[in-house]
């Protein structure tokens, strides 16, 4: 053992005779090495998977008609980015899908939070409406897609509606739960300090429900995208779902996978933006010990 390492509890192991600075420097170096190793391991696994896929597809071990292969997908992806489809350039398709998902997501989460907090604060209302919400929640959201197409047509609003219902229930139930979980002593404290109902909701209930709400926003943005894309499958003229649907029609699996890659990148980007906002808002929370991954 020549260098100090991080033990399981994050403490630094050192040998006698080392100065503080030395110990610190070694610990920092060890942490850096660890981080580099993790990144390298991730890359190796990715390269391994991709090459296995490529070789397996090319040697006929898996059927490239269904599974395509990475280089073909990369080619297709490049084509999509540079040339787009017959109907429109890629950015236009992407913008359409994002527009549908974002409008649905924003309205879904705003209404989800409003209803969740309102019902969470009002026992009688929640007793009355809980049964309806349970029933509505039991409806698999995607079965509404054909109905929304009939109702709102092939354009933007049918997908927004689907996105909305996908997002709403997730955010609603988390906001509701978060309000219910608000610490009783904290609520009593605020009331005795002089908070009226509105002040209590605004400065105690909503902040304490915030971590629940954020957890739901992370998941539900993905759901918003699902809503938009399923809507596009059923009937649309533009969008990533439309690209996939057309590619399926002509058995172009490479293009289907390429479209999937695009949507994955978008969702990950949105996710990281949300994490950033959350961290900004949650400065008051104690940081987890030595959690520096993000």
């Amino acid at each position: 053992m020549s260098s100090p390492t991080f033990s399981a509890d994050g403490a630094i192991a050192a040998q006698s005779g080392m100065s503080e600075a030395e110990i610190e420097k070694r610990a920092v170096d060890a942490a850096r090495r660890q981080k580099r190793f993790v990144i390298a391991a991730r890359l190796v696994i990715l390269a391994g998977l991709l090459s296995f896929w490529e070789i397996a597809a090319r040697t006929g071990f898996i059927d490239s008609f269904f599974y395509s292969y990475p280089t073909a997908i990369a080619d297709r992806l490049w084509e999509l980015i540079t040339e787009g489809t017959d109907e429109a350039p890629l950015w236009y398709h992407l913008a359409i899908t994002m527009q549908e998902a974002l409008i649905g997501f924003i309205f879904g989460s705003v209404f989800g939070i409003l209803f969740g907090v309102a019902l969470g604060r009002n026992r009688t209302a929640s007793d009355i409406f809980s049964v309806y919400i349970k029933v509505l929640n039991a409806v698999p959201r995607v079965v509404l897609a054909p109905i929304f197409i009939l109702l709102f047509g092939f354009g933007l609003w049918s997908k927004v509606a689907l996105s909305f219902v996908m997002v709403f229930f997730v955010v609603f139930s988390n906001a509701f739960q978060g309000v219910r979980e608000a610490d009783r002593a904290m609520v009593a404290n605020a009331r005795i300090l002089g908070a009226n109902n509105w002040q209590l909701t605004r400065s105690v209930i909503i902040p304490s429900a915030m971590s629940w709400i954020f957890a739901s926003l992370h998941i539900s943005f993905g759901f918003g995208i699902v809503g938009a894309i399923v809507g596009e499958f059923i009937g649309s003229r533009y969008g990533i779902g439309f690209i996939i649907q057309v590619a399926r029609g002509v058995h172009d699996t490479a293009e289907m996978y390429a479209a999937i890659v695009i949507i994955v990148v978008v969702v990950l980007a949105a996710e990281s933006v949300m994490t950033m906002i959350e961290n900004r808002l949650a400065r008051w929370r104690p940081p987890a010990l030595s959690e520096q991954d993000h």
Partner: protein
Amino acid sequence: MSLGSESERGAAIELRHVSRKFLSPDGKAFSTLTDFSMTIARGEFVALVGPTGCGKSTTLNLITGLGRPTSGEVRVMGQPVNGIDPRVGFVFQTDALFPWRNVIDNVMAGPLFRGRPKKEAEAAAHDWLARVGLSKFARHYPHQLSGGMRKRVALAQTFINNPEILLMDEPFSALDAQTRLLMHEELLNLWSITKAAVVFVTHDLEEAIALADRVLVLTARPATVKSTHIIDLPRPRDVNELRYRPEFIEISRRIWEDLREEVRHGADAA
């Protein structure tokens, strides 16, 4: 200090023949208090001791107005309790600070809720933080403070509203013994500024005796007042030195005699 001799009108807190019954989930009624009476004078410091779960916290809830008696009457400053009285302050057993607000924002919460201008509230909050010795930590968040410091913030948060009645529900029970002693000094010091009537619920007999003018021993559930012990130790008290005095030991022996029976009862019932 006049103990219990004040006219009824002048009492800070009065519970007259109060009972409180709960409905358990299976539809049975059970009582936490029956025919409970006590009177606390203005500026008096009273400690309630009793077996676990005997209804001490229920009593405090009735005084805040968060709970209502099934029968009997609760009066605060001569008036029947009707909702939360702004003259009441409450220090909780658990951490009831708002973790998303820093220390200064926590302390000024009360005045802001009560509609005082922000400048004024902030100035008052700085005063109270100075009094509990936490001026340097105004911008810290609760999770960055020790348990004792958080308790001091809670005291400042409560005292800033100038409560005439201060209710404390085992406020220091989660602290280690040394910190608890420091908090006793802190509390007596703050109390000497405001002279609120205090009801202090605790399991710790020494704590009760060191702080209070009067210690009420409650019976096992349903609770009534079993006995009253007047603590005739001079103020200002040095809580560290106090507990080695023969009078102190004598009082605590006497109260424990009383309490032991009830604790045994409570344990049998549970």
